[in-house]
Every structure is written in C-alpha cells, then in structure tokens.
C-alpha cells in the first residue's frame, strides 16, 4: 500500500518528520518498507533564464535558445514551446532527468542542433495541468531547484499491510493509524450531494440472487456526464500513490477506493440491457471477456454482476468489456458493494486475477461503508464530469451486517501481556483508533467493532490492539516461570548427531541437497521398474522439472553435487548427507519418510604429495570408512555379501556389497555404474555408501561393557598361502575363527599378491595370527605347534600350497 504524506495530511494534522512517522507506524504494526521523496526526480530540474532565441535552421516549429542556468556557462537548448521568449525564467530538465511519463531527458541533437536538456511544461514535469507551453516562473534565480521554487515537497510511504488489516488498504485507514500514533484527530472528507432529479428506483433496480456471495449492493446513477481526462488534482493524487489515470469517471472510482478502501465499479448505464443489475453466480461454461480483453470460462462458483440479460462484470474482480466507460458514455451507474471475501478469493484465484479490487474484497471491506463510498464517488463525478445526479440510491442489503460486541477482561489482558494497565488506560488506547469501549464493570471493556475493523471478533483481538498501541517496547521483559527440567535427548536425534560427527571424523563433508528431484531420477539411477524407489511422491506445482518429485534416495543429490564439484576442479570429493527420503504410499495420504545416510567418494584417496603418489579411490576406501563407522558405533557382526538382485542396481556388479546384520539389510556400498555417473554429469569413478539410519540404530548397542585389556603378551605368527584366486579372503579368516582355539586372538590379512612368480589363476595371501593365552605367557614351542596345525588345516581345506 502506497500513501503520500500530503494526502494523509488531508485527514490528519501530522507535524512529525516523515522518518519519525514511519518509525511510529512501523512500531504500531504498519511496517513502513520504503520512504521516498515524491519529487526527487525534480532534483535535476533547475530554473533557467532565456538569454537568446533564434529560429532552428532546420525546423520551422523549433527554436534554438541559449540559457543562463546559473552556472556562469550558458547552454544551448532546442525548444518547441510557443511561449519561449527572451528573458523568460522557465524550468530546464538536465540530461538524466526521469520525467513522470517515463521519459528520460537525454543530451541529444535535435535536427542537427545539440540540445543540453529540455525546457518543460508543468504537465511534463508532473507539477501541474498546463501543457500549452513551458513553465513560466514568477520568482527565483537561474540554477535554483524547481521543487523548492514551486514549494513541491511530498513524502511517499510504502506500507506492508498484513492480511488482517484491510482497513489500512486506504488513505483514511492509514490516516486513522497515523492520528493514533501522533495523538491527533482524524477528519473525514465531507460528502455533500446536491438534490438529484427523478428517483433512482424509477430507472433501475438491483436483484441479488446470491446473497451469501453478495450481502449488500449499493447503486447510484448520474446522467449526462462528460467523459474526459481528469483535472490535475485528481491525476496528481492517483499518480502520488502509483495509480495510472484513465478517464475522469474511472479515476474517481479509483480515487474513492484509495481514499476509503471501498472498491467501486462504474458501468455505462446505457449498455446495461433492461437497465438493471442482477447479481448471480455464473453458469458452468459461461464465457466472459473482462476489461483487459481476456476471455474466461466461468463456473458456478463465480459471482457475476449481470444486466437484465448477460454478465457485465466479474464481481469484485474486474469489469467487463461490454459495459465499460467509454468516451461516449452519458449515464453512469456506480456500484459500491460488499462481496463475500471467500467468494471473491476463490474466483480471483481460479481465474488467475489479482486486482486492487479483489485484493481488498478478499480481505474484507467495510460492510457499512458502501453507501458513503457511492455518495463520495457521485459527489466527485459531478465535480469532474458534470452531469445530473439521479436522486437516491438503491441499497440492496439482503444480509444486513450484524455488529457483535466483544468483551475483554482487563485483568486477563494484563495477564496475557504481562502488563499492569488500568481499564481506563486500555480504553483510551482503543479509543485512539476509534474502538469505543464501554465499561460495564471495573474489569470489563465492551467494544462493538466498527465495520472497517473486520479483524476484531474475539477478546484477544483487542489485547493485540492494546499491546500495539501501548507499544511492544513498553511491555516488560520477564522470565517464563515454568518448572525447570531438562528433558532427556531424543535417542533418534542423538544418534543422527553422532552419525554426522563420525562421518566428519572420517573426513567427509556434509552436503545438504533439495528434497525434490526430477521425475526420471529413479530411471537415471538405473533402478528397475519394480524398485521401491520408483514410488516417488509428485509435487503438484513444482518450480521446475528438476524438482518435480520427492527423492527416494540421497544418491541423486550427492551425484549431482559431485559432478558439479569435479567440473569446478574439486576433483577429490568426499561428501555425505543425512536426510529424509520419501516413499508414496497407496493407502495413506502421507508418504513414508525415512532417514538415510549416504556418502560418496570420488577422485583421489589422498592428494599427490611428497610422501607418496596419488592413489585413486577404490572400493576398499569406502569399505574402510564404513568399517570405521561400525567400529565407532561398536557394531560387530556386519556381513558384507554380494547384493541380491534388485538391491544394488545402481552399482557396478562385482564391485559392490550389501551390508547385512542379523540378516537385516543395512545398506549397500560399492562403485557406481559409469553410465549412472554419466547420467548425472559425473565423468569419473565414484563410490557410494547408502544406509538406512533407523536400521543402523537398531543394531547399535546402547551401552558398552568394559573388558580389561589382556595381561599377558601376545605372540604373532605369519603364514602365506598360495591358493585359487577365486577363494574370498573372508572364507579363510572365517575358517581360522571357526576353529575356535582359545589362544587365537585375531587373524588379519596383511598381504594379497597376484602375478609373477605366482602361477596364473592363483594368488598369494598372507595372514597374521595373534596368539595369546589369558592365564600365562605362551612359549614359542606351544605357539609353533598350534600355528603349524592351523597352517595344515588351511592348506587342506583350500587346496593351498606354501610358497
């Protein structure tokens, strides 16, 4: 909402500085989002005296003038005004000046003669109606600013009006607030209408067929008007609040809307068939062309203003082409109605309109203000367009407004606010915005809210009024008195926090990606058609195709982020994300939301350095990370198995694993298939880890039981086996463990080798076994015997040989 200080001053005596007024309005709930000087554009328009006038060598109607602009350096300007003459003091707009019509003055050659700026008329400067010639200044000296010579000063405020305060979508509404914050009185414009001719009931009627959509409709008629441009004062007022003048009749409707907040519509009465108004809902499929030339197909929820035969306006939203005010209009019917906010909102939304009128109607106009606004419009139309008023108004009001008293207990208000205001103080605060309160008893304020305050219906609404008018700054600051107890942390949240910290300690950076992805993402991940991750939840109104569905995997975000990083030359990428994935459910309105942990590794395991050569990341880097994760969480017994079909479609077969614990799938890890990488614009190898956070939590022990470290020394023995390449290392380790010898503490692979001199199809695998007894130090002899025994068992079991 844009208001100008000079317009506000018509209604309230404001002596505060614009900055102070802005501050006080803001602190009363009318947030002033911008303040600017209306005539700032005139800063580069200066008084200039004509020193010489010569005919333009190339154009009959133009003169070449030299001007004294107070700088001591005369300048040359080309001017076409009839009144340009020697000695005249006029207004020179210097190059760069932006004139109200949107034109910017440039230094340019006019028919071959360089013109330094432009001598302007009052109309061109937006300071007056006269466009017959350039401005003639009576006083002043060359170089002085026009704005100060003409006493032009006005400040414009842009106010962010919250949806609950439609009363402040008008100058009078803002003025009421300004009066309250200034401690001044509000003066309303006087409405005096001449006695009209005839009687309105004799020439027209209003029939409301849909009273729940239109509880009230006021109409007035003026005959014999002359449609034409508005007088300067009216144009000036509209321009000051950012509205475009159209013609005197339409301008008056807009002026009154800005002044009172009541949107009006003016019909060309002679274009209304049968000369009457019918308010009804549209028929499904009915077509209608609005003022802006757009044809709309209507439905039965749209309220229409009709004449005796056809729709003539989309009620509360926009008038129709078929009845609009035109240069030949002679008789005008003024509509001033109260429409149901919900009805207007639905229509405007469904048909894609947002107009000044619909904005106000959907928030709620003053149901008691229709008649006054119609009279105000009639008064002004008679003033600016002539004509003869038809006596009387039609006030169709099938559902009269029923004001409802609101009672507030002063002590309750103080309890809510933490204040100690007296009933009288509260009453005075309310009265400052025309909320007159009765005090039936010493603790009760009874307010019947006026029609313009549609937001007040319960006691708390009055509490808010008291609070904002008292000033939030004046309310004390206290500490809430509640029993102090620190609630225990939520295990699921603590667990996720722990996971994040572990991932960071493992050298991963946390990523946060949008929860929505493109609809074809599951396909781009290489998932089969029956994969559960195909069950995406679609967003009905996505901002783009890339954000059309909710993600079912964290991988797409990480892959895309990795691709971007590699393109940005961050070639080694270690990212993780912990967040939700969403699965649509056929039998429930809300999807299943599941927390997942995913990580991606790509590029080099370590950057090349003076210690060692760069090593590309491989499967075992990711496996090492996840094993460290398990170790941090004290999770034991996780099996790494070849994924079952459908478990890891995104990963390269043979280079991936499923992680299982007690036969429950925790997640998968491995190399992402190159074609999947390519689908996300990633051109290098990448390795994925994706786990279900709750599954992981379910196997994480809550408590750790301490076991004392061993008291006796360990003995290490190594053994190297030459065996078939296809034998997984885990099987050999498992074989050793299965022997369950109490002295075997652990077994570890410390070398794997293929190639010469090892025979083809074979590999050499070196194990290190730790032997320890818990009751004494083992002798060499004891260990050697056991080690030989284990070696023989392995040789037999796997058909292995010693080197």
């Amino acid at each position, binding site marked *: 909402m844009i208001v100008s200080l000079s317009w506000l001053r018509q209604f309230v005596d404001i002596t505060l500085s614009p900055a102070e007024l802005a501050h006080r309005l803001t*602190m009363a709930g009318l947030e002033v989002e911008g303040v600017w000087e209306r005539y700032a554009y005139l800063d580069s328009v200066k008084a200039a005296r004509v020193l010489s006038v010569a005919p333009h060598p190339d154009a009959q109607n133009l003169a070449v003038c030299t001007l004294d602009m107070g700088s001591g350096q005369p300048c040359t300007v080309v001017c076409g005004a009839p009144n340009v003459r020697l000695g005249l003091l006029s207004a020179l707009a210097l190059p760069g000046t932006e004139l109200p019509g949107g034109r910017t003055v440039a230094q340019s050659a006019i028919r071959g003669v360089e013109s330094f700026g432009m001598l302007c008329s009052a109309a061109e400067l937006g300071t007056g109606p006269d466009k017959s010639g350039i401005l003639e200044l009576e006083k002043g000296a060359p170089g002085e600013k026009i704005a100060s010579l003409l006493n032009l000063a006005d400040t414009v405020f842009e106010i962010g009006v919250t949806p609950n305060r439609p009363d402040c979508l008008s100058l009078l509404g803002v003025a009421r607030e300004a009066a309250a914050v200034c401690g001044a009185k509000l003066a309303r414009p006087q409405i005096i209408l001449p006695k009209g001719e005839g009687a309105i009931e004799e020439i027209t009627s209003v029939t409301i067929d849909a009273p729940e959509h239109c509880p009230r409709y006021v109409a007035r008629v003026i005959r014999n008007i002359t449609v034409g441009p508005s007088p300067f004062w009216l144009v000036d007022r509209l321009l000051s609040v950012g509205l475009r003048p159209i013609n005197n009749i339409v301008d008056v409707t807009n002026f009154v809307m800005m002044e009172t907040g009541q949107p009006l519509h003016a019909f060309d009465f002679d274009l209304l068939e049968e000369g009457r108004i019918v308010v009804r809902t549209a028929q499904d499929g009915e077509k209608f062309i609005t003022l802006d030339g757009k044809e709309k197909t209507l439905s039965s929820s749209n309220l229409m203003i009709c004449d005796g035969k056809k729709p003539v306006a989309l009620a509360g939203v926009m008038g129709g082409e078929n009845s609009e005010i035109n240069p030949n209009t002679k008789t005008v019917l003024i509509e001033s109605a109260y429409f149901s906010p919900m009805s207007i909102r639905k229509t405007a939304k469904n048909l894609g309109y947002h107009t000044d009128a619909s904005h106000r109607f959907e928030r709620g106009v003053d149901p008691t203000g229709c008649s006054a606004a119609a009279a105000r419009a009639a008064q002004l139309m008679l003033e600016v367009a002539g004509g003869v008023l038809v006596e009387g108004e039609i006030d169709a009001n099938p559902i009269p407004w029923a004001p409802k008293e609101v009672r507030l207990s002063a002590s309750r208000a103080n309890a*809510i606010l933490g204040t100690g205001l007296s009933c009288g103080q509260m009453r005075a605060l309310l009265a400052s915005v025309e909320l007159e309160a009765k005090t039936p008893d010493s603790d009760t304020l009874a307010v019947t809210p006026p029609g313009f305050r549609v937001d007040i219906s319960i006691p708390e*609404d009055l509490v808010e009024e008291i609070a904002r008018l008292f000033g939030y700054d004046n309310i004390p*600051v206290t500490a809430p008195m*509640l*029993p102090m107890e620190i609630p225990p942390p939520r295990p699921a949240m603590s667990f996720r926090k722990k996971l994040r910290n572990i991932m960071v300690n493992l050298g991963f950076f946390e990523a946060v990606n*949008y929860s929505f992805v493109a609809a074809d993402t599951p396909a781009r991940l290489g998932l089969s058609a029956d994969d559960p991750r195909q069950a995406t939840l679609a967003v009905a109104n996505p901002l783009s195709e890339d954000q059309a569905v909710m993600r079912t995997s964290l991988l797409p975000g990480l892959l895309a982020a990795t691709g*971007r990083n590699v393109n940005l030359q961050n070639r080694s990428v270690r*990212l993780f994300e912990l967040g939700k994935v969403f699965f649509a459910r056929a039998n429930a309105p809300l*999807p299943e939301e599941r927390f997942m942990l995913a990580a991606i590794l790509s590029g080099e395991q370590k950057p090349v350095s003076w210690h060692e050569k760069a090593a590309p990341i491989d499967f075992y880097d990711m496996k090492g990370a996840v094993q460290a994760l398990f170790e941090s969480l004290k999770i034991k017994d996780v099996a790494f198995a070849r994924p079952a079909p459908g478990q890891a479609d995104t990963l390269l077969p043979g280079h991936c694993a499923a992680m299982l614990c007690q036969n429950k799938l925790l997640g998968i890890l491995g190399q992402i298939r190159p074609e999947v990488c390519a689908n996300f614009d990633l051109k290098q190898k990448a390795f994925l880890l994706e786990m279900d956070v709750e599954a992981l939590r379910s196997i994480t022990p809550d408590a750790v039981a301490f076991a004392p470290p061993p008291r006796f020394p360990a003995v290490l023995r190594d053994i190297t086996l030459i065996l078939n390449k296809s034998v997984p290392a885990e099987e050999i380790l498992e074989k050793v463990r299965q022997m369950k010898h109490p002295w075997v503490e652990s077994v570890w692979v410390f070398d794997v080798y293929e190639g010469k001199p090892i025979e083809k199809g074979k590999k050499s695998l070196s194990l290190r076994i730790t032997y320890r007894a818990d009751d004494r130090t083992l002798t060499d002899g004891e260990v050697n015997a056991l080690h030989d025994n284990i070696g023989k068992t392995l040789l037999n079991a796997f058909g292995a040989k010693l080197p």
Partner: protein
Amino acid sequence: MDIERLKSEACGQISVAKDLDELNQASVKWLGRKGALSDLMRRIPELEPDLRRDAGQKLNALKKELEALLEEVRTRISGSALALDEGLDISLPGRPVPAGSIHPINQVMEEICDIFVQMGFDVVEGPEVELDWYNFEALNFPPDHPARDMQDTFFVSGDVVLRTHTSSLQIRTMESTPPPVKVIAPGKVYRCDSDVTHTPMFHQVEGLLVGDGISFADLKGALTLFVQKMYGPKTPIRLRPSFFPFTEPSAEVDIGCVICKGSGCRVCSGTGWLEVLGSGMVHPNVFKNVGYDSSLITGFAFGLGVERIAMLKYGVDDLRRFFENDLRFLSQF
C-alpha cells in the same frame, strides 16, 4: 694401581663434555686403545699373580661403567645437537588426513537448538510432507483465507502439502501432550519461491511454550535471552506488531544489526535493525483446535529462519550457496 682415582677423573671429564668433540676426546683419553684404561690393562701382568684377577675384574667393570656413561652423555649431547643442526625439514607438509565438516546450516541449527535445550526446551520433529490440517487449518489458516498467500505452498494433493513451516509441530505436539509444553522443532521447510533471497527449501526452528500464566513479557524475556546468547550480551532486540494467523498478539523480532552495530549498513538497508524471528502469543483458535482450554493456559510461539542466521553469522552473501555443496564453500566451516 689407582683405579678409584682413574674412575673419578674419567667420570668427571666425560660427564662435563659439552659437545661430541669433547666427548670423543674424553673417550679416546680414557677408553681409547692408547687410553688410560688400556694402559692399566696392559700393566696387569706386572702385578703380583694373586692380585691380577681382582684388578682385571675391576678394570672390566670400570670399562663397562665408563662406556655406559659415555653413551648416556652422547645421547644427551646428540639429542640437543640434532635439534640444532641435523633435524627434519619440518616445513614439509604432513601426510594428509582428510578433515570433513558439518554443513553450516546444521551447525547453526545445532547451536540454536542447544541454546533452547539449555533453557529447558525439548526437541521434537515430524513429517516434512504434511496434512493441510497441521500445516494450515489447525494453525488458524482457514481454507481460502488470504493469510495463506503469505506462504507460497507446494502441494502434493488438495490436502497434503510440503510443510511451509515447522509450526505444524505445534499442533502435533499439543495434540499428543497435555500442557505444559516447552518444545522446539527444527527442520526443513518448503516454499514455492526461488530467487536471490529465496530457496524452495530452507530450515526453520520453531518454538512453543505453553503453560499457566505465560505472558507476552515472558516471550520478550525468552527471546532476549536467546538473542543475547546467540549474538552476544549487548545485542539489542526490538519487537514490532505483525500478523501471523496462529499467534495474537504477533510480533516480528528485530535485532540490532550485527554488521554495523546499529549505525546502518547495506545488510540492514540502513535501518540498523535485522529481522530474524516471528513470534507471538498462541491464538485461542489454535488451543481450541488441539483441545486445550484457552481460559486456563496461555503460551507463546516463535519461529526463526536458520539460513538467515547462518548468513549473518558467517557473512554468506548468497543464500543459494548453502545448497550448491561446493567443497570450496563447505570446507570453510
């Protein structure tokens, strides 16, 4: 043969050696092939036969003792000498160990939550895809009400939305818990808006405190405490009347600009104030919708945008950086 004298002289000289040169000289002098000890050894045959054995043992013991001393002093001297002149090039970079980091948004969210947890708030969470009832209607956003325009909403269907705020947790919490309630709800929220100052997904922390006799003054107290913990004890705070359907009275909360300290700058558009929070007293309709008796209890709620706070904290110039996951950005936190 005066072994004792030799021992005391040799020990004295060896132990005062200041550098390896002096030590070597002492070593040669006492233990060298032509040194004093060897000299005595060579003279053993000159002794009476019954004394030879005893002398030999004593000299051998002394030799061992001196050698140990020599080694001890050598270690000491060479230790300090190494440090002085033949150490490592410690300027060479260490062997790289990857160091990750938590996303700045989650760091800030954690920090905010920690402050409220210290103030006794419980942390709750809930679905990001939400029923209209929880996101709007129960929060006193009637259907087809202009207040819904305040939040550009992503819809899944007619009555399922991507939550536009974590205020939905107010309803979910109060529906399942009798008063008093003291919770914060951190999480992701979604709005159908994308430009320099908006991303379609961002993070919020919502707070709710409901109980007997909770007042607007208490709201000011709680928020003042939070702001001062988050931004420092001298940070001024200002509440301005505003409108949210689920609170009344409602307030926007400004803090004194942390960049210019109130004198006015680009970040605060010259006002000296930064809007960081929305808040207010819980609207009676909200209580009614969760079955609380608003004549018995009052409460306040507040919500803050995590990105906004993170931008101020770190001086991040563009909101969108938080979701690009550029390692050059992430590694700074």
